[in-house]
Each structure stands twice: as C-alpha cells, then as structure tokens.
C-alpha cells in the first residue's frame, strides 16, 4: 500500500491533535476547570486516527467513556470538545454531556457513553439503518477490552453478522479495564479470535502502529460499504496515563510495563518511520506540531470565553415536541 504524503501528514496531524488536546484537558482537570471524570486517550491515538481516516461525515461513530480521541478524529473541533468539558454552551453537547457524553451528529460523532457496552449495539443499529436505506454508510463502534465480556458484545456482533450489516467494530485492547487486567476477566484474551467465532471478519493489529490500523480499517470499511458485512479489528494498545485523571496508576501494573509501552509511543514511532523512509521532512512535522499547539491554545481561549449554558433551558428537548 502506498499512501500519499498528504494522508500520512494528515494521520500525523490527527494523532498530535489528540495528544496535545488530551494533555491540555489533563492540565485543566488538575486545575479544577473540568469537573466530572476525564479519561484520556494518551497512547492510543493511532487507533481512532487510523480508523476515522476512512470515514465520512455521514458515517456514524459510537464511542465510550474514553472518547475524546474518537471525537477529534471524527472531526469535532477541539474548541467544541474543550468547551464541552469546561461545561460551556458552545460545547459539542451544549454543556449537557461533559467528557462521557460527546455528541456531534453533524460530523457523525453519534455519542460517547458513560455506560460500557451500548456503543456496540448502537453501531449495529446504524448499520441496520444504512442497509435499510441502501446507502453506503458505515456504523463504527469503538470500545475497550472491558466491553468484550459484556453481553452487548455478544449480542451486537451476532446481529451484525447474521444480517450482514455495514459495521466496523474496533476493540481497543489496552489490557486493562480500570485496574482489572483483561487476562483476569477472560481466559481467552484473543479478542479477534473470539470475534471470528461469530462468523465475521476479524483480525488483530498493532494498535500503536497507525499504518497497520489504517490498512486494516480501510479494508474493513470498504468491505462494509460494498455490502460485505461487518468486521472487527482488535487494536492492541495501551493507555499510558491513569484510567482517569486524578486516579492513582500504581498497584495494578508495573512501572516497567508502562515504560515499555511509552517507548512504543505511536506518535514518535510514526514520526520516526516517516523520517526514516524519507516520506516527510522534519520541517513538515514541525509545522504541524506548531499549528496544533496554536489550535489547542485557541480552543482553550474559545472555551474559556464561552458562556455558561442558560439554566432556564435545563429541561428543554427531553421530548421532540412533535406530538
């Protein structure tokens, strides 16, 4: 697969955008600007980036508590994300959602969920819509290893498979659900193998290798668009920050393990390989780095300057008001 330079740079840009934004959110959390929980995606940027590079605005992404990266990769502007976590009216969910409820249907970001599991079913439902309407859109679910042992995984994969729905299931296997190791929650930790048992296309890739993800997702998305049914990609990756900001990160995993994964940082690795291949120049990357720094600063200013939601609207839109 030869990938155009533009695409390579775009993948790099998305990953850096996610990283810088997450680091900013972590600082804002520490500063008390963000209330509620804040689960960062640091270390896992290659997954959302590699998958969403193949998606259009009218493809539907459903995500989890750890959803900032998915939102950004799907096209939610950093300002709308930061403002949401700051609880402002200009946030992508109007301040109603916060970190775990990011909605931006305009760009096909159909929500993150604070409950583990539903995204799998909802992506299946999007696939159902698209098949019924005979479009070539795709439904995509991102979820962690923790969701694999939940009934939603079983029921969703099965329905998508028997009905040949255009759905892509992306499992971000970062080996832990909060502090519980995946190997203690499942005897068989081969998610792709388990998924294949349902009869869909399934493969495992290095989730820290953006090109590996990009390639696998490209094939799966194309297959789904062409009526070839669902696929699952297990992306083996790692979060290098605590489960959520403000939580401890010791006791359940070793510093050696964390360090070994930090050494496999998806952004540095990708940058290095691009430079090694001569595909891009250091200047190319520095330009992006600088632009992203500015972009995130602007996002913070935008969020900080944004108004709070109007409390008199607090009960609006519970119903559509059509009947």
């Amino acid at each position, binding site marked *: 697969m030869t990938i155009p330079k533009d695409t390579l740079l775009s993948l790099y840009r998305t990953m850096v955008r996610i990283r810088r934004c997450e680091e900013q959110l972590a600082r804002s959390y520490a500063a008390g600007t963000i209330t509620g929980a804040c689960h960062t995606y640091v270390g896992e940027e290659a997954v959302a980036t590699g998958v969403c590079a193949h998606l259009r605005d009218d493809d539907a992404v459903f995500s989890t508590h750890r959803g900032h990266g998915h939102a950004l990769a799907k096209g939610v502007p950093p300002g709308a994300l930061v403002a949401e976590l700051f609880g402002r009216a200009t946030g992508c969910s109007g301040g109603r959602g916060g970190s775990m409820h990011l909605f931006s249907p305009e760009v096909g970001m159909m929500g993150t969920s604070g409950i583990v599991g539903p995204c799998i079913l909802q992506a299946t*439902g999007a696939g159902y*819509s698209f098949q019924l309407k005979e479009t070539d859109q795709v439904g995509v679910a991102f979820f962690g290893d923790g969701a694999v042992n939940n009934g939603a995984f079983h029921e969703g994969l099965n329905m998508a498979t028997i009905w040949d729905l255009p759905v892509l299931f992306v499992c971000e296997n970062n080996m832990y659900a909060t502090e519980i190791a995946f190997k203690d929650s499942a005897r068989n930790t081969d998610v792709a193998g388990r998924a294949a048992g349902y009869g869909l296309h399934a493969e495992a890739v290095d989730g820290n290798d953006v090109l590996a993800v990009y390639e696998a997702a490209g094939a799966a998305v194309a297959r789904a668009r062409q009526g070839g049914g669902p696929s699952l990609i297990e992306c083996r990756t790692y979060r290098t920050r605590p489960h959520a900001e403000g939580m401890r990160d010791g006791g359940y995993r070793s510093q050696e393990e964390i360090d070994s994964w930090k050494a496999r940082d998806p952004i540095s690795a990708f940058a290095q390989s691009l430079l090694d291949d001569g595909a891009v120049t250091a200047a190319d990357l520095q330009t992006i780095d600088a632009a992203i720094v500015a972009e995130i600063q602007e996002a913070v200013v935008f969020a900080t300057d944004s108004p709070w939601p109007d409390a008199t609207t607090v009960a609006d839109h519970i*119903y559509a008001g059509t009947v």
Partner: protein
Amino acid sequence: MAAREINFTEAAREALAAAMTRDPTIFVLGEGIGIRGGNFNTTLGLFERFGPRRLRDTPICERGFVGLCTGAAMTGTRPVVDFMFIDFILDSVGELTNQIAKIQYMTGGRLKMPVLLRGCVGIGGGAATHHSGSYYPLFVNVPGFRVVVPTTPYDAKGLLSTALRCDDPVLFLEHKSLLNVRGEVPEEDYQIPFGQARLCRQGTGVTVVAIGPLVPKCLAVCDTLAAEGISVEVIDPRTLAPLDMDTILVSVRKTGKLLVADESFGPCGVGAEIAAQVMAQGFDDLAAPVRRLNGVHTPTPYSPPLEAAVVPSMDQVAAAVRDLAAE
C-alpha cells in the same frame, strides 16, 4: 351502511401497515414477527408485503435489539420493537433508560428518538409471573418516554398511528384481555393526540380513572351502581405520559370523589401520581380522599384461584365506588 367492526389487534395492525406503507424507514424487530406474524398476530400478513428487512425476526437478545434500535433511530430510521410479552423488556432497561430516553436531551434536540416499543401487558390465562407484567410506572418515572395504554380498537388504531409519527420513544402497551375486543374502527388513517383522556361515561357522584382492562370492568358495573343511585363518571387516560390531568381535575371538581383503578402495582404507581396531583391542584374539590384500587402487590401466581385473587375485580371496583359514594 353499518360501521365496520374489527378487534383491537386488527385495528393496531392497520395503523402499523398504513404507517409502513407511508414511511419506508419504519421497520419492526421481534421474535416471530416475520413469517409467523407475531405471537399475538400483531404483524400478521405484513411480512409478505414488506419483506424481511422491515419485519425482522431476531435472536433472543432483547437488550441487544433495543440497543440496535437506539443506533437506528439516531441514524434516520424508525424502529418498532415488538416484545410479544412486555416482560421481556426488562433485560433492556439499561438501553432504554440510559440511552433511548436521554439522547434527544443530550443532543439538545439535534437527534430524534422515534422508537416504538410495544408488547402485551397484564394478568390472565395462567400466564404466570414471567408473562403477566405491566411495569409502566418505571417509564412514567423516568423522563423521556411516552406511555400509551389503549383500551378500544378505535383508540388502538389512532394512538398507534400517532406513535408512528411521534419523534419520541413511545411505549405502546396492549393488555391481553383486550386484544380480541371488537369495536367500530374507520378504514382510513387517523391520529389521536397523546395526553387527551377519553370521557367514557358521564356521571356526577364519583369519578373513576380506570387504566387498561379496568375501563371495561368499571363500565360494566356503572349501570348497577346507577340503579343504586350512584352516578359514576369514567375516564380512560389513554396515555400515562403525558397524563391528561385537566380532564381528571374537571371531573373531580364536579364529583368531589375519585377512584383510580389500575391492575398494575400500587406503590409508586400511576394511581399514586394521580392522587398526588389531584391533591395538589384540586384539594378543595375533594370531598373524600382519593382512593386507589390496584392489583395485589405480589408476583403473579399461576393457579386460577390465586390469579383471580390478585386482579382487581368488577366487584372490587363496585365496592370501592360504593365506599367512596358513602363518604
């Protein structure tokens, strides 16, 4: 020309067929709702007209297909879940409460959630405790749902037609004992707005708000009570969310006495809500405390004499009205 009579199930099916003809984004999920036409004939004959994508037999995974419907509604289709027995909804309460009910709100109205959830409720025929539930108070308690409990074929058709145009999640609950009841139903499509009670019988002495099968039970004792000198006004709320409190309050202003008769459980039930609202808004109209008549607060037993003992009977309705009238 004599008006046409059909039964409750046929009336609801007409509304569904008309809506599916009109709106190609409607599809139905459930177990045996395809070729089989539904355990309760809710979809009989529709598979032949609309095919397998729009009448989809599912695996037995209620949580899963309710979750599927969430995503489907978010992406522009209009799913109908046919639960057969509404008891099976319980495995999907997480998807309903945390997802379906909340998404319009969380998106500030940018997404609509036109999901119709239907199924049979109620006690009867020895169905026993896993096939006799009602459970609607939950969906009145949690914001985001419309809850519809029709009692006549006419209302079933008109309310289902409304439900299939409504952009909110709607529970459409069909009491087993009413499915074969026949009544006059126009051939053409029509809608009955949610939140409009039906005044089933006018009276001056006691108001009865009756829910579901308690409507016919109550109407059946009104003549006897009238002969005793007790004039009963009977109201069928038709939808429990929204609840047409105005009609109830107007009636209570006249009668001063209210009985809420409901097969479903009493504690934190619909009768409690109506009682509390009537007290809050019509306290001075009340000549006696609002009374509630509910099914016995117990799992539903199988054996005929036990089953009969848990359901509010016509005699109990009549006795409660008499007591109220005497106060």
